[in-house]
């Protein structure tokens, strides 16, 4: 086998693997990219029910209601609010007034059914999406939401 031919084979194999990988990536992207919406985005842009999205904002004060394993609360970006319902154990850092990010879908009644509430390691941490959503409403200062 000549050097040229070997190079050709290797190039061919490389291109084939890359092609497969690109296909996989594109297919996976199409189905698994999850977009982030703030409560205001949902009001303004409108999101179809049953589409997997992420939402985020601050947990509104005095909005958390628990019934067994189901928790209902409102998420606000200070301009608009969104009702969220979640069944399961809440992460340790879930508090009223704190930033929160949730994965799930909107139901037909405009309520967000979350299947995952994100926890953070650090109480000083503000999810960047939430920070930027709040910034858009001109209400966010660095450090806000940390102290109760």
């Amino acid at each position: 086998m000549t050097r040229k031919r070997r190079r050709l084979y290797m190039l061919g194999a490389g291109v084939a693997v890359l092609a497969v990988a690109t296909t996989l990536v594109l297919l996976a992207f199409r189905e698994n990219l999850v977009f982030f919406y703030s409560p205001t985005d949902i009001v303004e842009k409108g999101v179809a029910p049953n589409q997997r999205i992420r939402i985020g904002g601050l947990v509104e004060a005095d909005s958390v209601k628990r019934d067994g394993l189901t928790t209902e609360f409102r998420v606000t970006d200070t301009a608009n609010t969104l009702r969220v319902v979640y069944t399961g154990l809440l992460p340790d850092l879930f508090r009223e007034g704190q930033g929160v990010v949730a994965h799930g879908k909107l139901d037909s009644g405009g309520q967000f059914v979350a299947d995952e509430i994100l926890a953070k390691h650090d109480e000083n941490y503000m999810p960047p999406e939430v920070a930027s959503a709040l910034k858009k409403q001109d209400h966010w200062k660095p450090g806000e939401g940390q102290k109760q």
Partner: protein
Amino acid sequence: MTAELGHFALVLALAVALVQSTLPLVGAWTGNVAWMALGRTAALAQAALALIAFAMLTVAFVGSDFSVVNVAQNSHSLKPMLYKVAGVWGNHEGSLLLWVTILALFGAAVAVFGGNLPMSLRARILSVQGMIGIGFLLFILLTSNPFLRLDPAPVDGNGLNPLLQDPGLAFHPPLLYLGYVGLSVAFSFAVAALIEGRVDPAWARWVRPWTLVAWCFLTLGIALGSYWAYYELGWGGWWFWDPVENASFMPWLAATALLHSAIVAEKRDALKSWTILLAIIAFSLSLLGTFLVRSGVLTSVHAFATDPARGVFILIFLCLVVGGSLALYSFRAGELKAGGLFAPMSREGALVLNNLLLATATGSVLLGTLYPLFLDAITAEKVSVGPPFFNAVFVPLMTPLVVAMAVGPLLAWKRGDLAGALQRLKFAFAAAAIAVLAGWWWLADGPVLALLGLGLFAWVTVGVIVEWAERVGLGRVALRDSLNRALNLPRAAYGMSLAHLGIALTVLGITASSAWQREVLTILKPGDKVDVGSYTLTFEGARQMRGPNYTALQGSFAVAKGGQHLYVLQPETRRFPQPPMDTTEAAIESTLAGDLYVVIGEPDGKGGYAARLYWKPLVIWIWLGAVAMAAGGVVSLTDRRHRVGAPSRQRAQAAAAPAE
């Protein structure tokens, strides 16, 4: 005084690094032996100075010297001693100091153990190490100085994030950094070889043990981090395809590819420029990982409070290192002579396939990790790329890799016999078929992918045994001779077998724990019973209790199997006063057959408590597999081959022990 001494040592280390990065390089170019030899002295001096700085910060933490900002922000006088020490690297500044210290130690190790390297190559390697050192020392001194003073000093410190007060996490960063920074040696070897314009099998033989060391640490570091997430975060998950996890996984994938391509470079003098490129990529990914973690540009469950200004510095440094080394590569790689020829179906061919798949996997993880950043920068749209994406891309890429893992070692160098190899793997075929059928028969409720996982596990396990049996001639020669051969097999062969078995075990653990997990989420009142897997748990109630620096709600679950009482599990939720934070402490009963995992949540106000209970079959094998991989690396490191041409002291030892 200690802080000033540490600060001073860092400035001196920077001065030494400046010398180390220039004079030996010039010496190697002009043939000035004294300047080349300076590299060794400078590397040792830099290691000593970095150690002094690190020791000074440790002293400040251990002695709770709150006049140092870093200590005041991250420590507390009531903290247990282990976490006072771990607190040294439990924060941004300290972890960078740890990074620099490890970097300097690796440089010193090259200086000490690199006695068998050609003088000019060693001088160049140490110079490149010195350049990396300059970057990080500047970063520390300009943006992240851990020795800044605070006046007036507070009475007590802010404390360490309670989640980080855990033995697993105390040792996770040092291990991970030993891996990240260890790859800098492979990088320096690569750049030095490019400057020299020469790569030969000897080069590959020198670079391999260093990569192996880094790879072992990286493997253990990732496994430890994953295990920590499993038992500490209380979600029962062990890998989330989180950016910070990906940041450590990408260098691991690249280093794994490098380990395999270096074999080809060493044995067959082929794939040389590709091996160089991989060494550059592996370390660049380590730097990228540091950038992603330290700059806070990505949303991550692991994100700590971060500072964007620091991100800019690392980004510039990253561009310099990656851009500089790749420019050098494009300039010089053409001059590297292509080596031995081989047919596509050969050991080399199998290793090329390994590299292709690992490199593609690395690329797709990189894409998935950075895509949200790009999209945000271009369209200001916020997206997340979650586990479904990575699973959809990663599993199809890794499956052929694991299939080929059993075949590759059976192929001969240069021109292999695929039909013959497959024929010899008939037992592995049979085992895989039996595993799939058994899985289908016994555990029909799992997804189809789980059957694939079981099949791969059996295929690789039996494949490794077949390969070993081939090597020792089991059944072909007398048993006695086989035994003799087994004893005389190179350690590297055992290392490979062990590491490949580790992969098989990890695949088994992942498959079983995700496909046949049992999960119960419920509200329990004292006296309630709940079945999880084949166990029955009785909730005996919950009580408030007090720990050394926290208060806790502790639940008690009596576990029984077949009516027989076994043990009591006591999960907690802890409330730390300083810094204020709650953590979940899952109660886990780990056995080789599976883990019982219990989490207690908040009271519902009507006498009940939320609880989440899991049965996770074979989950422990995920990490035992990783330990086996790292052990394989260590066994391979002890191979005699790596000591060939080593300093005479070691040769004398080998002569004194003729049994070896």
